């Protein structure tokens, strides 16, 4: 369902959304006191830990929201912008920004906010920011190597650390709460007049307990993708759930018939698909079933999607996963491509043929064998369909 961009919100409307979100962002930053450089710098000297409190609370709130909405399937986490990881750039940039923070007393967002209420130092900081970007732009040929070094993809921290999303979320929340407690103790020692003076211990303790409980809940909310893939990898689940099957003969007949109510979905690897697949088949590997670009094809209710793979078991796993994702009108090829190849493509008359039915089957298979082989040959010569053009959500700072 979400995100709404780019499918439901146009580029122009998205700019209006940007403005509205920016207004909320600026208002909250200013209300929190982030328009004041003295307050911001306090985080490094212990006299005011507002930055840590606001920052961590915001991060935990948004992260929990993303996990919960992803779990119930409202937010397509495959489709949101995950900041890419370039190791050297992330570290070097962070170190330079750390110096910038302590020397300048602001960061870009807070400086804009401070400038908006008349802080002259914030205006100088914004001006400096423009100079800094200009320096990077002019020095780009020199910086490019380190800027592009060690690209690790759009990886997520829990994968990097080899733990589940829930475990990391709980850890982060515990670290946040411990930090809140420690920094409040430190602040009270350093600055008796600091913001912690106004805290009500009772409500803060309650809030702390609350978010730790939230963390425990998150522990049991795997990513929807993780959860569904886990479900269909369980042999027990596969055995106890059935999927409609289609026989090789029916599939062959429908292919020759040019049946428009049929969509063949080849779930094998791209290499196997390229070397030989059935006419009109689309290649969607099992792991790709979640991808948004395939919702149009898989979501057509009037078309029967028949999943094909080398063996029926792999087909069934893919079909069950598609079913769990919410697609309808699915079936698998009985016996997999192995049986289809044996009984149709490489059909050879076996034993005696006596009954009427056997005679019909023999006649059909002999005919289909050659005809489908021809169709496969033709479809192989055709240039592959370009992958559906998909607008990706753009992001970045």
């Amino acid at each position, binding site marked *: 369902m979400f995100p709404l961009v780019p499918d439901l919100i146009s580029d122009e409307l998205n700019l209006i959304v940007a403005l509205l979100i920016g207004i909320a962002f600026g208002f909250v930053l200013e209300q929190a006191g982030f328009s004041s450089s003295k307050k911001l710098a306090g985080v490094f000297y212990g006299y005011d830990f507002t930055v840590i409190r*606001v920052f961590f609370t915001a991060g935990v709130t*948004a992260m929990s929201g993303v996990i919960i909405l992803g779990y119930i399937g409202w937010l397509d986490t495959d489709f949101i912008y995950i900041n890419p990881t370039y190791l050297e750039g992330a570290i070097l940039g962070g170190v330079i920004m750390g110096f910038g923070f302590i020397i300048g007393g602001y960061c870009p967002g807070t400086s804009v906010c401070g400038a908006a209420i008349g802080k*002259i130092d914030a205006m100088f900081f914004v001006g*400096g920011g423009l100079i800094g970007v200009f320096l990077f732009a002019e020095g780009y040929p020199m910086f490019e190597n380190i800027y592009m070094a060690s690209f690790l993809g759009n990886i997520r921290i829990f994968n990097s650390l080899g733990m589940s999303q829930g475990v990391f979320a709980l850890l982060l929340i515990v670290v946040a709460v411990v930090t809140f407690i420690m920094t409040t103790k430190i602040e009270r020692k350093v600055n008796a007049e600091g913001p912690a003076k106004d805290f009500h211990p009772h409500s803060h303790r309650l809030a702390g307990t609350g978010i730790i409980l939230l963390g425990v809940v998150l522990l049991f909310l795997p990513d929807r993708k993780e959860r569904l893939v886990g479900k269909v990898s369980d042999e027990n689940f596969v055995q106890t759930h059935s999927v409609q099957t289609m026989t090789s003969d029916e599939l062959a007949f429908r292919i020759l018939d040019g049946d428009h109510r049929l969509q063949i979905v080849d779930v094998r690897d791209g290499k196997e698909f390229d070397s030989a697949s059935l006419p009109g088949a689309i290649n969607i590997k099992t792991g790709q079933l979640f991808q948004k670009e395939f919702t149009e094809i898989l979501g057509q209710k009037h078309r029967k999607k028949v999943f094909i793979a080398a063996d029926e078991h792999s087909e069934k796993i893919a079909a069950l996963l598609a079913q769990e994702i919410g697609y309808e009108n699915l079936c698998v090829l009985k016996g997999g491509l192995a049986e289809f190849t044996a009984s149709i493509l490489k059909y050879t008359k076996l034993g005696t043929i006596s009954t009427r039915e056997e005679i019909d089957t023999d006649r059909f298979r002999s005919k289909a064998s050659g005809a489908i082989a021809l169709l496969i040959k033709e479809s192989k010569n055709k240039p592959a369909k370009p992958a559906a053009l998909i607008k990706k959500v753009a992001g970045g700072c």
Partner: protein
Amino acid sequence: MKTHYMNPYAAGFLLGLTLLAAIVITGRGLGASGALKSSVVATVHTVAPQHAAASKFYSENLKALHDNPLKAWLVFEVLGVVIGGFLSGVVSDRLTFQTERGPRISNSARLGFALIGGALFGLGSQFARGCTSGAALSGMAVLSTGGIITMAAIFGTGYAVAYFFRKLWI
């Protein structure tokens, strides 16, 4: 002058909801330094178009922004920050022209350091592909490895060198 700010946890919660709204509606988090980049690219593109066309940095960014660097999401978002910050200043009666500084430095020194700090932040945000909002905060919300590394590097460096810059603040 004593002014009252919102409880930081309440503010953090509201900020988190704003960030979540951005992610849910638009698929992307918040940001700020991207608007600085757009402004620089737009300025250079206007003032020295040939230079911009010859440079890989400018031409790639121009292409990414469809030759119209000011019609970018982050530019509108940062315009919103200006409006939102101003409205909050009105509501809480905090609109004044002033320079904030530590007790041991002069106004002009503070402004000089603000300029230098801004330049460092601008430079660093390009290396890290985002600043405190775009890389650290938004990166944490979507659990991006790079974003969390950048967050640790910003705050880690801040604490590591705070002692040497104490005269600026305390």
